[in-house]
């Protein structure tokens, strides 16, 4: 025999495992609950005639239970597939729940509306690429950090690098002498060049296009000699490029300096310029960031 009132009193007074009490209210965790609130009228256990809508993979089903089947828990819930169209689904609910209590009909339609909204939203979100939230167990993080420190210690990088490079120097792999980068000398040069700048026509260069020609035996020797005498060139450019690497304007300035130096030092400038001009120019879209270089620490990142 099915006594709803008794069931309700027993459940509510003593213990219901589906009940969840939060500061905002009392909720029901039962999956068949229409509203989600722990109420006598919304409790699926305490109502022998009840209906819900549940969602399986984006398809909505209308579940109904009647008192005639109360003794058969296996066949208790009758399932009807609802059409995707919202209006047709509403009609279907009306059809199946004719002569049912108004409150239940109303809350069911309310639930259908909410679920339809959710379905639309989930579909829209699925189209966007969003960042996946990756959980990472703490143990793994600690382990990796430990391993990295061990590896760093084992590598002994600084010494290895110094030894290797100084050995290379000794064995004489580097055919020419290293050139010096003294800042003051280049500042002087820089000041002188800027004056001459305006008179010299500039050569437009894109980033990374003008390069020393590698692997070409005839030109190698020339180039190395040039590099030797070009002690001013690289550091000065670096001085200019100190802040913003991504500026095309700066490259133009550098080009000017370069051309000027060529002429001043009276070296094999023509060859270099010729080479440079022959290079194909690829236009690169580079968006300028207004950021100057700054340490990550200062940004507290």
């Amino acid at each position: 025999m099915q006594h709803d009132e008794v069931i309700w009193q027993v459940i509510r007074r003593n213990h219901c495992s589906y009940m969840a009490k939060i500061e905002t209210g009392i909720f029901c965790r039962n999956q068949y609950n229409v509203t989600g609130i722990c109420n006598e009228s919304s409790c699926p256990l305490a109502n022998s005639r009840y209906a819900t809508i549940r969602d399986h993979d984006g398809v909505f089903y209308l579940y109904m239970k009647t008192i005639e089947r109360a003794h058969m828990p296996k066949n208790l819930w009758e399932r009807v597939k609802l059409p995707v169209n919202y209006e047709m689904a509403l009609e279907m609910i009306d059809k199946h729940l004719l002569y049912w209590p108004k409150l239940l009909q109303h809350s069911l339609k309310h639930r259908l509306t909410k679920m339809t909204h959710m379905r639309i939203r989930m579909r829209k979100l699925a189209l966007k690429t969003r960042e996946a939230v990756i959980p990472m167990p703490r143990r793994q993080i600690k382990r990796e950090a430990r391993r990295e420190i061990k590896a760093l210690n084992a590598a002994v990088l600084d010494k290895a690098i110094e030894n290797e490079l100084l050995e290379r120097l000794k064995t004489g792999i580097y055919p020419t002498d290293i050139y010096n980068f003294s800042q003051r000398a280049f500042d002087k040069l820089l000041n002188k060049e800027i004056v001459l700048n305006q008179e010299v026509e500039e050569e437009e260069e894109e980033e990374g296009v003008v390069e020393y020609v590698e692997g070409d035996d005839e030109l190698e020797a020339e180039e190395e000699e040039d590099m030797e005498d070009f002690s001013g060139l690289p550091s000065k450019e670096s001085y200019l490029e100190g802040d913003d690497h991504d500026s095309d304007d700066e490259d133009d300035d550098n080009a000017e300096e370069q051309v000027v130096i060529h002429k001043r030092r009276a070296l094999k400038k023509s060859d270099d310029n010729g080479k440079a001009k022959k290079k194909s120019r690829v236009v690169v879209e580079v968006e300028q960031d207004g950021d100057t270089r700054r340490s990550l620490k200062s940004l507290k990142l």
Partner: protein
Amino acid sequence: MDLMITSSAEMKKITSLDDDKLWAGFDWEETDKILSGEIKPRTLITSYPFPAIRYPQRGPLIAQELVSVFPNSCYMRRGIRSKLHEVIAKAKKKHFTSLILTHTNSRGHDELIIISLLNGASAVFSVIDFIPRADIPNCANPLSRRIYPELHMKSFDSQASVGTARMIQALFPKVTSSGGRPVAWFQKQNNHIFFRSHRFCYEEALSGESSSVRRQVQECGPRFALKLKAVERVSFETGKFKLLCVVNHCKTDFV
């Protein structure tokens, strides 16, 4: 990033040092051309389109530092709606040979993906301990980007690591060794690849001393450590990644 789900048969888990398994299935002809000097590599560095949850500025900052690490590279800011395959199409049109993506994931760790636009191989690294140039004490001035660094790969002994070394080498143009170039140093140690960049400089001694000039090695360039996490294949049309290998973090040394 879109990840296609691969069947377990295709997905290989690295548990042993097996070179063929890690880098098989990719066409290495083009990369060899870069290594031999025929093709000049060009790298496009960019970050993920959507801002990261925790540290949104970090990804682009790392990308900008990397521009100074890899020669012949440029940084491109990415719009929110741009898709990967569009970026790849643009890059291919302008003859870029590699694409690097930087990102800081929701955990706060940095990731780096190197995609070779020649054969679609992509290596996913996690970047540990990224120290930008500004934070390094006594840092040397960065040289002009037209002076290409010399590449030095150390301790890449195992077969699998040779493939990884190739991916990194494909980003640097081949240069003749001559003094004064900065040296880009990649050292492999226990599954980690450490990067340092140094160059020679003169130290002007004080006037009292006899030897006027001393050669010193000075650090320039950022520092970071890489750890290979996965090998994927990128399809150029759809821009989706297909996970080929996941590198299990076991004690044995594979990469």
